[in-house]
């Protein structure tokens, strides 16, 4: 059997993951060996990705049957693969110095690679149970990565909280799959879509999907693991969790819900209500945080809220612009939050970790950091301002597209929701702006003055991501090749 080119984007990371572990064991400096191998693996996966993207553009969606399991490569798969690869590559480059003094680096890179492989697989599946398998595999890799600092009580606490909540959520998904099988007798998403009719059992299944996958997507009130996991994980993993893992949960939820789109018209309003809850609770919790990474973690809730509003519009109105806006924001959020976590991580590294100290990074620690670390400060500020939605940065463009899609529906309720989202976006400045202010306008603190030098290799991903955010902000149509097929794929899933 010859595999289509897109299957290699899943296969390559999964094959190289154990290789990275073994090669890491060969040399004395395990981390360096493992990191170099991971970079090579990324180069190969990127090559496969470029070919797959061209193939999708020219030949359209392609399907593959493995036994009775159906896989397909459509716009959603492309989007998820792109975010995973972009973030993953930057995180691997970044982590070399960040983890230099830690034990078990080869396991870190191997797990990271496996996580990327299973997330791309999650995007490509067209089978309800297979979706759960990828989802569970992603969860297992992320539990281990969150608790990477296995001797720190706080990191273990975050890990077990994450595991318990996520595992309880995934059993709810299994119960939902049971309900769908009992009602429709099918597992293939297309077959379910054709046979699903309005029934209480399928309604319950949809709600269980929302709750089960919602734990991973951090829907309020199922979000309590998120601030702990994001703040305790190594910064590279925080960037991955926030930039892609919660989004992968969202894609899994969208895939399963879109198969049940014939059951009720309430999925759209349900997603939008969770969007509102997420924005409000995320904003209120982020406001007044003293730890930088915790603040960024709560801001992820807010951004999931914006995505849910865009996608909710797509669900209720069969509106492709809303879907594209939601997915555009998903990509931009990956880039912005990834950059924010990596930039904060670079400061955490120079100020605390390089001295062997695993204290959290506080707002006050960063006072006057711009004088000593101009690049880290500049890129952190670009990320924060883009998250707040200031033009002409990427975050503004995607939020704008969601808002425009909402206003274009001419539906009073949706316009009110969108207006409320815009207000929330303005409110978010109240916690982003003080951090930028502290970094630039205060006198350098004693911690900043005694900090170590920031290695050039760590600056590289920061600068590249910041340039990406500015470029997308100025030319938002640059990402149309990614967001348009994703929007179309979701709408096709909804049968619209």
């Amino acid at each position, binding site marked *: 059997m010859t595999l289509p080119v897109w299957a290699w984007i899943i296969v390559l990371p999964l094959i190289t993951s154990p290789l990275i572990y073994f090669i890491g064991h060969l040399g004395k400096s395990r981390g360096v060996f493992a990191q170099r191998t991971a970079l090579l693996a990324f180069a190969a996966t990127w090559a496969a990705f470029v070919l797959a993207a061209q193939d999708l553009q020219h030949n359209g969606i392609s399907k593959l049957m493995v036994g009775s399991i159906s896989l397909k490569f459509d716009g959603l798969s492309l989007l998820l693969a792109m975010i995973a690869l972009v973030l993953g590559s930057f995180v691997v480059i970044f982590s070399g110095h960040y983890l230099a003094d830690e034990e078990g680096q080869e396991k870190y890179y191997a797990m990271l690679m496996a996580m990327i492989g299973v997330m791309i697989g999650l995007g490509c599946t067209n089978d309800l149970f297979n979706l759960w398998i990828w989802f569970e595999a992603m969860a297992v890799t992320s539990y281990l990565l969150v608790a990477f600092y296995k001797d720190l009580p706080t990191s273990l606490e975050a890990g077990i909280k994450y595991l318990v909540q996520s595992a309880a959520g995934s059993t709810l998904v299994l119960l939902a799959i049971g309900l769908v*099988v009992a009602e429709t007798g099918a597992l293939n998403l297309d077959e379910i879509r054709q046979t699903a009719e309005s029934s209480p059992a399928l309604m319950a299944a949809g709600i269980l999907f929302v709750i089960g996958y919602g734990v991973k997507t951090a829907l309020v009130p199922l979000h309590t693991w998120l601030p702990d996991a994001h703040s305790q994980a190594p910064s590279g993993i925080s960037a991955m969790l926030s930039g892609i893992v919660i989004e992968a949960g969202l894609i899994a939820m969208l895939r399963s819900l879109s198969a049940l789109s014939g059951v009720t018209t309430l999925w759209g309003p349900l997603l939008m209500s969770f969007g509102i809850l997420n924005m409000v609770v995320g904003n209120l919790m982020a406001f007044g945080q003293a730890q930088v990474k915790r603040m960024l973690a709560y801001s992820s809730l807010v951004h999931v809220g914006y995505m849910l509003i865009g996608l909710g519009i797509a669900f209720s109105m069969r509106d492709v612009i809303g879907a594209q806006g939601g997915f555009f924001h998903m990509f931009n959020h990956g880039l912005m939050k990834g950059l924010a976590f990596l930039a904060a991580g670079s400061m955490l590294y120079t100020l605390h970790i390089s001295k062997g100290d695993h204290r959290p990074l506080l707002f006050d620690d960063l006072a006057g950091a711009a004088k000593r670390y101009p690049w880290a400060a500049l890129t952190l500020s670009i990320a924060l301002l883009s998250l707040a939605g200031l033009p002409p940065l990427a975050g503004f463009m995607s939020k704008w597209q969601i808002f425009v899609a909402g206003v274009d529906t001419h539906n009073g309720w949706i316009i009110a929701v969108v207006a409320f989202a815009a207000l929330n976006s303005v409110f978010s400045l109240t916690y982003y702006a003080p951090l930028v202010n502290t970094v630039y306008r205060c006198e350098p603190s004693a911690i900043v003055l005694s900090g170590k030098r920031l290695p050039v290799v760590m600056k590289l991903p920061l600068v590249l991501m910041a340039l990406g955010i500015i470029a997308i902000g100025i030319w938002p149509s640059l990402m149309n090749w990614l967001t348009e097929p994703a929007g179309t794929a979701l709408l096709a899933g909804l049968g619209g």
Partner: protein
Amino acid sequence: MNISPLNICLLGVIGLVAAGFYGLLTTRNLIKVVIMLQILVKAAVLGLITAGNISGQLYVTQSMAITVIVADTIVAVIGMAFAIQIRRQVGTLDTNELSSLRG
């Protein structure tokens, strides 16, 4: 309601889910928390088999159930590993004493 095998299975699923969530919410011991998660998974496995019986797809759902058992054993192993490591580093398995992360 007549007592058919199907109804017994459905009651079993509901009972196990209820017991699992009740235990998850009330127990304070990490080992017991992992056991409660396992009870929830058993509910899901029973649910899948019952669903296969209802829809006449028993072969499919049986293989799914076996896959679930394998996947969930991995989760249980990691959960236990965390519990052991927490006992070593913190000196307790009580979740009440594990609440340094707040706010």
